[in-house]
Structure formats: C-alpha cells, structure tokens
C-alpha cells in the first residue's frame, strides 16, 4: 500500500495540468463576465460562492440575453445534477467523518476534485482529509483567483482554445478514469458510459447525456460476471479483512 506522501506527490503531479486548465478558463470567464456588465465583486461571487464552472458561463450568456433568474437557476441545477453521483460515489470513503467535515468537503466537490480524489483514496485504501483538500484546492484556488485576473486583464490574454488548452479538461477526465479501470466491470462501466453519454447528449443535451452515461454505465457493468479473484476479494471485504469500501 503506498504511503500518504507518495499518493499526495502523485496527486500534485496530476493536479498541475488541471489547475492550469481551470485557471485558463477562469480568465476567459472573468473577461466574459466583465463584458456582460458584471462588477468584479459580482463576477468573483459567482466563482467563489456558486463555484459552478460551466453553469457560470451559461449564466453569463443567459443574463446577456435577458433570461429571467428562474431560468438561470433551473439550468444551473440541471447542469450540476451530476454532482449527486460524485457525492454518492465518495460517501463510503467518508465513513466515520463528522457531518461538519462532510458538509465542508461537499463545497469543493467538482468534476476535477472527484477525479483527483477518488484514485488517491483507492491508492491509500482510505479517506485522507489533506489529500481531499489538495484535490479541491487545485480547482478552487486557480478558478477564483484567475476569475479576478480575467475581469481586470482578460483582454490582454490569448484565447485558451488557440493554445489547445480546452482539451485539458476532457483529456484529464479520461486519463484519471484509467486509474479507476481496475477490472472488467469498471471497463464495461467506462465503455457503456461513453456510448450512452454520447447518444443521449446528441438526442437530449450534453448535461443529460453525461448524467445518463454515469448512471447507465455502472448499471450495465453490474451484469458482467466477476472473475474468481474478484469474488474472493469481495468476500474478504465483507468479512472485514479488506478496508476498501
């Protein structure tokens, strides 16, 4: 079992690219917010309080078009519904932690924090508060600080898409999924997640597609027979000889 320092080093190495990507897009968001007429405090409040990535970009676009707040709030809820799956997936790792700690941890739960923290917990075989905090801060700090920079100096900077930085987010999500594909069921969940996600996204919309892929992939994967080694591991876990949730 790797020690905590080694897992954190790996986490930091993995988090650098994600932090750069989050910062680059927060610069763009800050610039867009300023062009939409938001004051620096309003733009910063969106990033620090809502801390909702794509929903913030959508909110800016809808505000410019004069869409009522109710529409923006409903869209935000739909765009962020996938966090339910992240939270549910992490819940077993928080066994024994106080409700206050869980409530605080929820605040910084994003796509990236989930993708960074889950492989780290798996590697450690347990939850580790500082590891989770590092994973969360790799998004929160660059997102909030770069929002302010974008609002103040965004027009001086090149578009991140021309530098290819828009590929960092999907590439990071796929790359971090690699560490979670440890057996046939996990591989099936990933493949079915891709197919269902894309088909539903084309038919209904990207947010619903992502959610559908995340729900359907594991459901189909449960039908895949476990290998004898996996059955033994599951039985060992049930008798308490293994610590993984």
């Amino acid at each position, binding site marked *: 079992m790797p020690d905590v320092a080694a897992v954190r080093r790996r986490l930091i190495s993995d988090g650098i690219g994600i932090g750069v990507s989050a910062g680059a897009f927060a610069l763009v968001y800050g610039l867009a917010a300023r062009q939409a007429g938001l004051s620096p405090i309003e733009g910063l409040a969106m990033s620090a309080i*809502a801390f909702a990535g794509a929903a913030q970009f959508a909110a800016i676009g809808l*505000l410019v078009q004069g869409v009522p707040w109710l529409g923006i709030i409903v869209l935000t809820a739909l765009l962020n519904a996938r966090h339910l799956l992240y939270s549910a997936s992490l819940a077993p790792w928080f066994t024994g932690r106080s409700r206050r700690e869980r409530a605080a941890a929820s605040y910084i*739960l994003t796509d990236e924090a989930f993708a960074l923290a889950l492989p780290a917990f798996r590697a450690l075989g347990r939850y580790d508060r500082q590891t989770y905090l590092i994973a969360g801060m790799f998004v929160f700090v660059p997102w909030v600080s770069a929002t302010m920079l974008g609002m103040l100096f965004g027009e001086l900077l090149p578009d991140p898409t021309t530098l290819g930085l828009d590929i960092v987010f*999907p590439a990071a999500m796929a790359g971090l999924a690699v560490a*979670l*594909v440890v057996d046939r069921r*996990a591989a099936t969940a990933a493949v079915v*997640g891709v197919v269902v996600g894309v088909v539903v996204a084309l038919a209904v919309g*990207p947010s619903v*597609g992502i959610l559908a892929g995340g729900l359907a992939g594991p459901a189909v994967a449960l039908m895949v027979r476990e290998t004898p080694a996996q059955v033994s591991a599951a039985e060992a876990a049930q008798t308490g000889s293994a610590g993984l949730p």
Partner: protein
Amino acid sequence: MELVALAVLMAAVTYPSRAVPLILPGFDRLPPIVDEYLRLIGPGILASLAAVNVLVITDASGDRRFHLGPELLAVLVCVAVVAWRRSLLPGLVCAVVLVAAARWLGAA
C-alpha cells in the same frame, strides 16, 4: 451588486447535489450491490464526461452534432500515455501539443 444574490441562488441549487449523498445518514453503510454500483460510477461518469466533451458539439443555435476530430485522438493519446507512464501530466502535455498543432495546421 444584485448579481451577488444570483450567485447565492446558484449556489443554493448546486450545493445540495454536492452534499446530500455525503451528508445523508446511512449512505456510507449500503448493501454490497449498491456499494459496487457506486464504485463503478467513477469510471462510468468520467468516461462519459470526456466523450461528450470531445464528440458532441453544440453550435450557437443550440443544435448538436457528432464531431470526430483531433480532439478525440488527443484524448486517446493522453489515455495511452497515462496507462504507460502512470502519470497524468505527460498525457496532458501530449494532448495539448497535438490539438494546438492540429489547429495551427488548420485540421480542427
């Protein structure tokens, strides 16, 4: 300053989806089949998130279309590098260089 209130309302609808399963009593003591389902959510949703991001494009009018371009190749290269080197950063660097080069050459 009134949009600070909108930020608070956006947070009010986002936070429950982040918190409810983590805070709800009993969510960490579930039957094995549910535990196994939750374990599989990680690879399922991360793969779905990546695929939808690179394969589905929504244009300004809201129309969606399937897109095959260097972005998919970049993600696959990143996955291969991560599997080989067991580290994300080199994979991301390869993906960014590939996409930036493709766009510079006019391929995307």
